[in-house]
Structure formats: C-alpha cells, structure tokens
C-alpha cells in the first residue's frame, strides 16, 4: 500500500517537474510581455524579437545537448566556451585567410572539435583524471590558442554562404513570402509530429501499465504547446521565415531526444552516470562511453563556435567567454543531477530558453548587467533547490 502511494507521488513529482518548468517558462514570457510593454512600450513577442531570441540562444541550446550527455555520464565540461572560440577562430582562418569554401570549412572544423573533445576525453575516461581539472585546463589552453591563432585581432568579414549558417533564413518555396508559407507548413508538420509522438508514448505507457496523468491534463498540455509553437511559427513566418539555425537546432533536439530515449548507447550513458560500478559489472564499456560523450561535446562546441562566428561575422578572441556557465546552468535548470544519471533533453531545452529569455528580456528592459547576473544566479539556485526539495520529499 505504502509503495502504491509512493508510485503515485513519484509520478506526480515527475510530471510536476516537467510541467512546472514549462509553466515557469510561460510565466517568465508573460512577465516580460507585460513589463516590457509597460516600461519601454515595446512588444516583447514581436516577430523580430522572437527571431532574435533564437539567433541569440541557438548555440547555448546546441552546446547544452552535448553538456547534458557529459553531465548525465557524471562529468562536467568547463572548456566549451574556449573551444567554441578556438574553433570559430579556425573557421575564420580557413575561410578568410586560406580562402576555403564553406562546404570544406564546416566539416573540417567539426573534425577539429571532435579531436579537441577526444584529447580531453582521453585523460578523463582512460586516466581517470577529474573532468573538472582536465576541462579547466582546456578552458585556459584553448582560450590561449584562440588568442595566438587570431594574434589578438578579429578576423572577418565572412562570405555570405558562411554567414547564412546563422543569419540565413529558409526561403519560401511557394513564393508568397509574407507570410512565409514554407515556414508555416514546417511548423504545422512539426506540431503534428510532436502531438503524434506524445500520443504514441502515452498509449505505450498505458499499455505498460504505467500511471499516466489524466487525459484532460495531457490534452491541455499538448494544446498549450501547439498553440505556443503555432504562435511562434506565425510570427517568424510573417517576418523573415525560419532561421537556418533554428532548423539545425530543432533537428539536433529531435536527434538527441531520440538518442537519449530510444537507443542502447543512450541508455548506457545514463547507466554509467547512475552507477558506474554496476554498469561496468554489467558488461558496459564505461570508459569508452565517457570518452565518446566528450568527443560529442567537442563536435557540438565547434558547431556552436561556427554559428557564433557567423552571427558576429567575425572570429574574435573574446567569443564564447562565459558560455560554459550559461550552458551548464541550462542543463541544471533543466533538471539534470550533479551526480549524473538523470536529465532530459526537453528539460535542457526549456532550461536554456528560460536563461535566454531572461537575458533578452532584461536587456530590453535596460536592467544592468550587474542585476542580470544576480537574478540569473538566483534562478539557477532556486531551480536546483526545487529539485532537491522534491527529491527529498518523495524519499
């Protein structure tokens, strides 16, 4: 009997977390919508600002996906900001000085990112040197190498093709353009896919005898998500269409969501973080998996590095300073556990959006950088306290 009550509490707690996060996100958006209009007489949810939000935050979300795996495996990567800067500098050097075409630069830089991840992951996984130390060293090393490679200068400008990585938009193949029909079509299809998937997984849960929330709750949640996405899609379509980077990001979110939920390798990474010894004694090659999570992190950091470089239209020595903190904060706000073994892609995306929207909203409001940092810090602390409190309560 007591265990039945426990299950109920666990189920509610799990839902509470995810639904609570989304509600918090909604509340924050609403807050800025009202306050920004009152204070500055600006529409927070204007098409331009929504577009900006994605352009500004895509790289945080992309790196947070990699960071999620690293943290789930029980590690941390402090070097991502420096690695993004360094790979951006490499992209700049190859493009501007060596004159490489975009289709050669992108894969080359991704490989550089993989190699950097491998170099760090090697010491962490096979030599068991704490990831905090190795990546702290990496943070310094790659910041230094960025300065060296750029000789302290900015490199730019970049050709249009490279810039479109970040500032390009999907053109309307139907030629209407305002609103962008292609964009609308993609958004509607994406919503349909999302709802279909969550219906399917709910059916599956019911078939497995798992306790699911009421169907009213389920539809309310799905409707809210659909309406929100439709709204965002409409706004984007009526401005310049879907940014390329939004497409890249969405595809990555879907891919990592699938990877963490549905694949053997994904499952094994959670096992390593959950109990490394038990995982090893179950025949899982724990070292190799940890190594691979860092390789993956390196690749995503280099992708983020190129996106940032494309957005600024210049490779600069100062790029990516402090990124690691935003990325790590997003993962923890998203509900990952410091000790590894838990954390979800959805949570990370919502966590990153919360951070990004707060950055953006507070900047529009003219809140000073000093207060911004204080507030962001407190939000991180609160989110984690909320988690720990929940976890203790369900015992």
């Amino acid at each position, binding site marked *: 009997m007591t265990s039945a009550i426990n299950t109920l509490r666990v189920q509610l707690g799990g839902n509470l977390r995810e639904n609570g996060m989304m509600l918090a996100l909604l509340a924050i958006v609403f807050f800025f919508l009202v306050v920004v209009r009152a204070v500055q007489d600006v529409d927070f949810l204007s098409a331009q600002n929504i577009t900006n939000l994605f352009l500004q935050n895509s790289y945080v979300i992309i790196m947070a996906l990699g960071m999620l795996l690293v943290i789930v495996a029980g590690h941390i990567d402090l070097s991502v900001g420096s690695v993004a800067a360094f790979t951006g500098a490499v992209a700049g050097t190859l493009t501007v000085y060596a004159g490489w075409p975009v289709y050669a630069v992108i894969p080359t830089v991704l490989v550089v990112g993989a190699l950097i991840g491998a170099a760090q992951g090697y010491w962490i996984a096979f030599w068991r040197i704490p990831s905090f130390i190795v990546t702290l060293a990496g943070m310094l090393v790659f910041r230094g190498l960025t300065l060296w490679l750029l000789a302290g200068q900015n490199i730019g400008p970049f050709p249009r093709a490279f810039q479109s990585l970040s500032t390009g938009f999907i053109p309307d193949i139907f030629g209407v353009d305002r609103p962008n029909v292609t964009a609308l079509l993609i958004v509607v299809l994406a919503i349909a896919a999302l709802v279909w998937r969550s219906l399917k997984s709910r059916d599956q849960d019911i078939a*497995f005898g798992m306790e699911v929330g009421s169907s009213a709750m389920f539809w309310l949640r799905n409707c809210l998500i659909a309406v929100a996405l439709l709204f965002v899609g409409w706004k984007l379509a009526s401005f310049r269409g879907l940014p390329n980077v939004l497409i890249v990001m969405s595809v990555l979110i879907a891919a990592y969501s699938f990877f963490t939920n549905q694949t*053997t390798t994904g499952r094994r990474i959670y096992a390593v973080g959950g109990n490394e010894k038990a995982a090893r*004694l179950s*025949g899982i090659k724990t070292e190799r998996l940890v190594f691979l999570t860092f390789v993956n992190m390196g690749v995503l950091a280099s992708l983020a590095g190129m996106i940032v470089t494309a957005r600024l239209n210049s490779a600069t020595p100062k790029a990516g300073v402090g990124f690691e903190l935003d990325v790590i904060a997003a993962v923890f706000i998203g509900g990952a556990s410091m000790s590894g073994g838990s954390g979800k892609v959805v949570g990370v995306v919502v966590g990153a959006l919360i951070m990004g929207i707060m950055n953006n909203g507070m900047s529009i409001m003219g809140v000073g950088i000093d207060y911004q940092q204080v507030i962001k810090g407190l939000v991180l602390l609160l989110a984690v306290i909320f988690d720990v409190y929940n976890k203790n309560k369900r015992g």
Partner: protein
Amino acid sequence: MTALLEMRGIGKSFPGVRALNRVDLRVEKGEIHAICGENGAGKSTLMKVLSGVYSHGSYEGEIFYDGRPMAFRGIRDSEAEGIIIIHQELALVPLLSIAENIFLGNEVATRGVINWPLAFQRTDALLKKVGLSEAPTTPVEKLGVGKQQLVEIAKALAKDVKLLILDEPTAALQENDSQKLLDLLLELKAHGVTAIIISHKLNEIRRIADRVTVLRDGSTVSTLAREDVSEERIIRDMVGRDMAHRYPERTPQIGKVLMEVKGWNVGHADQPRQMIRDAGFSVRRGEIVGIAGLMGSGRTELAMSLFGRSYGRYLSGEATIDGKPADLSSVSRAIEAGLAYVTEDRKVLGLILDEPITSNISLANLSGVASGWVLGKGRENKVAEEYRRALNIRTPGVHQRVINLSGGNQQKVVLSKWLFTDPQVLILDEPTRGIDVGAKYEIYAIMNDLAAQGRGIVMISSEMPELLGMCDRIYVMNEGRVIGELPKDEASQERIMGLIIRDGNVNREHAA
C-alpha cells in the same frame, strides 16, 4: 579479581534483524579477553555498543565500567573513559604524518596553535613504547599494514587507554608482524592495560588470552578460562545451533562438468601482494556448489577476478566452460561465454537505484530488447513483466524505481538481470544477505530451479547453515587458497571451521 567492564543483558535490533539478543560480558582488570564467534554472531555490534557508536538508549541492557554505570552517547564519551577501539579497517588518514595521526582531534595545542616540537617529542616516546622506529613526520601511507596497526595502538596510548579493543587485528598481517603485535599486547598488559581482542585464530587466543567468550547468534554461549580452551570446545560453541532454517526440497540431477577453473592466481590491484593463490574449482550441470570461508578469505576476490577480471591483477590460470577454454578477459566477454556474477553488494555494485525495474533488468543484455541500435521499450517491458511473474517480484509495477523495493525484491531484480543474459554458470555472492526469511526461501527455490534447468550454480556465503542446506559440494577457502572440498554428506559446520582454523595453525607453525 575485580571487573573492569561488565555488560549485562545487552540487546540490539536493526530493522528486521535482531543482532544482539542477550549478551553478557565480564572483563577483569588487567586481563586480555578474547571474543570468538562466526560472521554475524554479533561481535562487532557488541563492540559498537560498548564504544558508544550505538548510543545509550538505542540498545537494551546495562554497561558497568570501573563499577559505575555508563551511558555513552558517542565515541568521544567512551574515549574519555579510556575505552579505545581499533577497527579492522584502520582509521588513519593516509596522507598525514604519524604524529598528525596520533594527535588527530586531540592536538598538542594551545588555543588552536599546534606545538610541533612537543608533539614530535611525545610521538617519539609513544612510538618507542610500541616498538616502532619511524620518524614522526613519515606519512602513514608509506607504512605497511603492520606498522599502521602499531600507529593505531600508539594513538590509543596517547589517549590514555585503559581498555583497548582490537577487532581482528592480525587478519591482514604477515606472520612476523602478527607476532610482534601479540608481544606488544602482552607488554601493555604488564603495564596494566586491559584488552579485548576479537579473533578467529585459535593459536593466537591460546597464546595471549586469559579468558575467551564465545558468541553465537547474538547471545553469549560461554566464557572459558585459558585452561579450558580447546579447539573442539570453541568450535562446538561457535556453531552449535540446530539447523533452524528450512530449504526447499530438491533432487539434484547432476550432469557433466560445466565450468572448471585451474591454477587461478590473482595479485592485488596496486600492491605486490598476491590475493588468490592457485585456486581451482569446478561445477557440473545441475549442481549447486558452495564456497565457504571467513570474511577476507578471498571468495569475492576469486569470483570477481573470474568475471571479466573485475578484481586485481590477473596473473595466471585457466577456465573452461563446457570443455572449451573460456575467454573471461572482459565483463562482456565473460557474459558471452555464459558466466554471470551476482554481486555481494547489490546496492553499490548490482543496481542503478534511481532507475526503474525495467532498465535494471535489461542492463546486461540491452541488445536483447533492441533492434540494432534502437531500444524496443515494448520488448523491455515484456521481459520485465515476465521476470516479475517468474520470480515473484513484489511491486506495484515494473516501472517502479528499484530504490523503493525491499532487499529481497531488489535481489530478485538483480537475479532477473543476470537470468536475462541466459548464463550457463551463475556465481551468487551472498545471495541472501540482508534479506528476510521468507524472501530467502524464495531465492533458494529460484536457485534450485536454475540448477534443475541444467545450469551450474556457485554460491558464496558466510552463513554456513545455508551452504550446508543448499549445496551439493562445498569448497573451503582461506587466505586466498582453496583449502578443502567437502561433498554434501561429509560437510558439517565443525569440519568447515576445523579446516579453516587448522589451516591458520599450519601456516603459523610453518612460519614460526
């Protein structure tokens, strides 16, 4: 003679277990008093009650010390009275120096500032007393186990010890270190220090103890004077219980040899010591084979070193399964070869506590629930449901996190995990530890079923009645070696204990 310590009617319960029932212990001033008993007889629990680890009020009974009733609320209280306990796992900080360790928490200091010259001077004096010629500044990690033991004793002396308690002090020591330690105890006795020593080694007890108290199942069985101590008497008192447990009926159908291990040698992971020496055993189809031995006899180390070399350094040895050489060089290869190892500590080594039953069961055979790279959640769920029914795992659903299950049900999840790899040979390490009687019976029944399916079962257990009740053959291990093999009809607790105690004697006499 006057009693320094008298413990009367001590009882102590943990959830589901009665660790101490009615223990009486009387220790005279100036004597060395030995305490004997099987694993789980309650020796360590009793010493924890005495030293205040279990505070007054959490146990029943009374403690009189120096004629006064005592109510310790923690170790500090007992230490203030001069009662110092030295645990089997030494409580030294490896990176600190001898002097720092000796005065840890008890620094030679005025208002927080340490007087190093005085501390070193006192350390020197203490080290002289225990016969250790090392500089006070030497880090403890540079010392061998024997010398570390002496540092512990010096630390006790620094606290003005009146009653020194040693928990199996020679278990990890080489012969000459053991002798030195025993000599030191006799010398301390001459200086008026009373000692309680927990030991299994009869020759040791005969050499230094004035009296021996034997515990069994949490009760005092007897207290013998040195003159009355004999091997037979102590063994009888230690294991004399009747076979109260019941085991499910089984008619063994034993086939040909399934797994055989020969000349297995394993070294300590990072010390030059050898932990497993020339060990060998075999198990036939349909057979349940037991491995008996005291704690630290190398049973778990043997099993883990076989299972993908998960323990220590592999030195030499070969294993065959079904007559063919088995590649056990990694865990995944060992699983492939048909071996499964159910770990002793299911929470630390067996389960991912925060994950549900489903993913714990599929963990060692994920490809069994996946198509290529993609997990089939439906299949995973079905598998878990099957094992839930087959092994009668009591849970509201297979999506329950295993942290919420009872010990017995957790153990069934671990068993399910390994059964799902379809092993030929299962090594079960203490499969019923910490499990209530009903669940034990169920685990036994599962083991019998597995044997009846033609698998080979190797059962490691510290509970001898369990081995005698379940096994067709029992191997006895001591100090990393297999020292005997007893078929079911020849095996008895007395014979197993006798083998172990005599083996200790033989070793010692060889060395002496």
